[in-house]
């Protein structure tokens, strides 16, 4: 039993560490987009390197948590769902890193009239992911609070959709001086930023059903 106690304590620390990593990753993503749009290249490079490290760390943590849960038969009944949840959370930092890498590789041209919209989109999409983390933490301690914490995730996801829709509309309807290739590129980048909040929503859906089952 003491082995279980020790393993469980270590595991709960690693789960918290995993959540911290995702949370910081999302913050770095937001700062990275801000740096790119503002043309601060050194800050952008710095954020890119940081998110790369954090993504690697999250992957390692995710694998070790999964491994320990299976090897020590921890939470046998919720294990498969928890592993899926961790995978979905990892997807958030993966998408964030991928987004910043796309900015680095493809160097999209952001018209100055859209700078504010891009920063806002990254902000609101990142907020959806950020708000997911307290809900995920609550699942482990106070599952009855998960539902109310998820309200913000759904709110920011909807706001992201709205913002992305407005941006795409503006690009194709108002910015006639841009070429079709540039418009398509901006649409693609917008869609990528938007997908962070979609991943957060998918994780929120899983978390909600898991929390309900915990409460029954």
């Amino acid at each position, binding site marked *: 039993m003491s082995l*279980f106690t020790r393993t*469980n*304590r270590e595991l709960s620390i690693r789960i918290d560490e995993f959540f911290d990593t995702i949370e910081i990753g999302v913050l770095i993503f937001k700062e990275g987009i801000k740096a790119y749009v503002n043309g601060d290249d050194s800050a952008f490079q710095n954020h890119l390197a940081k998110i790369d490290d954090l993504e690697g760390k999250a992957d390692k943590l995710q694998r070790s948590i999964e491994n320990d849960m299976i090897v020590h*038969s921890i*939470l*046998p009944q919720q294990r498969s769902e928890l592993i899926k949840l961790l995978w979905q959370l990892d997807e958030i930092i993966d998408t964030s890193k991928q987004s910043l890498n796309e900015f680095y590789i493809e160097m999209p041209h952001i018209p100055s009239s859209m700078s504010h919209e891009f920063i806002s989109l990254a902000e609101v999409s990142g907020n959806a992911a950020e708000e997911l983390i307290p809900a995920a933490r609550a699942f482990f301690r*106070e599952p009855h609070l998960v539902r109310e914490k998820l*309200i913000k995730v759904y709110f920011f996801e909807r706001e992201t959709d709205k913002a992305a829709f407005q941006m795409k509309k503006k690009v194709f309807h108002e910015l006639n001086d841009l070429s079709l290739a540039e418009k398509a590129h901006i649409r693609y980048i917008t869609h990528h930023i938007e997908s962070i909040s979609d991943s957060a929503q998918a994780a929120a859906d899983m978390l*909600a059903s898991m929390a*309900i089952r915990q409460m029954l």
Partner: protein
Amino acid sequence: MIFLFLTSGLFLGWTLGANDAANVFGSAVGSRMVSFTRAAVTASVFVILGAVLQGSGAAGTLGRLGSVNAMGGAFTVALAAGLTVYAMTRAGLPVSTTQAIVGAIIGWNFFTGNAVDTGALTQIVTTWVTGPVLGALFAFGLYHLVKISRRRIKVHLLKYENWLRMGLMVVGAFGAYSLGANNIANVMGVFVPSIPLESADFGIFTLTGAQQLFFLGAVAISAGVLTYSRKVMETVGSNLLELSSEAAFVVVLSQALVLFIFSSSALSGFMVRIGLPPIPLVPVSSTQVVVGSVLGIGLYKGIRNVNLKLLGSIASGWITTPVAAGILSFLLLFFVRNLFGIDVGHAVSPLSAGGAGANTSTIIRYSIPVLLLITAVYLVYLVLSEKKKTERLNKKYYE
């Protein structure tokens, strides 16, 4: 020769261990919260302790129902019960060792011309009803308590799971002890009057003749647990009771409490001392108590979760099992006496009937209406709260 006659009882014990250990540790092992080896060893040790230390109470009541006064008779009665359990299990019908042995004893009473002690019979049949009902009530209350505590203490899920793991071992041990204490009467109860063994002094403790028989029966139960219960625990245990770890914990605790209540002489004596009617010490079906407990949790989660088929299977078992065992016992006794010329017993009290009438009627007068009232109140409460609960669960996260 004694061992030859005891084989049917030992076989009955083995089947009980193989099947009923799953009621205690099935959900824990099936969900991999507890390893089979740990569960089997714990169950074996505590079944023996329960049988030897506390098995005499329930056995006494079975003895009053029919004191089988020949080894041949005891052998045949146990064999009839064992075969009934085996045949009904094979046929996929709900069956209980407790009800089979009661039916087989009544068959012996009819065959030998002994009157059935209606007082003892009523006492036994009453507990068949009250056992699952009590299990449901305990499970409902305990599950509510567990849920409230979980919400209040705000413990990490992993730590909570650790507590549950340890809790399952502790209540599993208690469940195994209660199973041994209560159900040993089914296995060895019929042999006690016909095999009067002398007390054995081991220096630091003494085992009476009945306790020696109980020890043998408990060893057979343990053998059943160790040799054949793995498959039952891993398959039937998890399939029959698809419960969360905390629900499994509550079910095992409820079952252990019910079995303990119906086998504890000390508790019964305490009731008498405080001016209440004594608790009947009667073997009850652990499976039916478990089903009752699962229904209790179903009631807590919402009345729509109650599977009426399970209730039907319990009720049908009250009639089909004893009748089948009684008929088989009568037929086997006929063949054993007339074909092999073995003494299967004789009439002792052909005309007298109803020994424990006073106690039994008091029990019935108090316990049945109280239980029915509590159940009715629970049902009304649940029906009223159902709508509210459904609304809460269906509430959307956002508009």
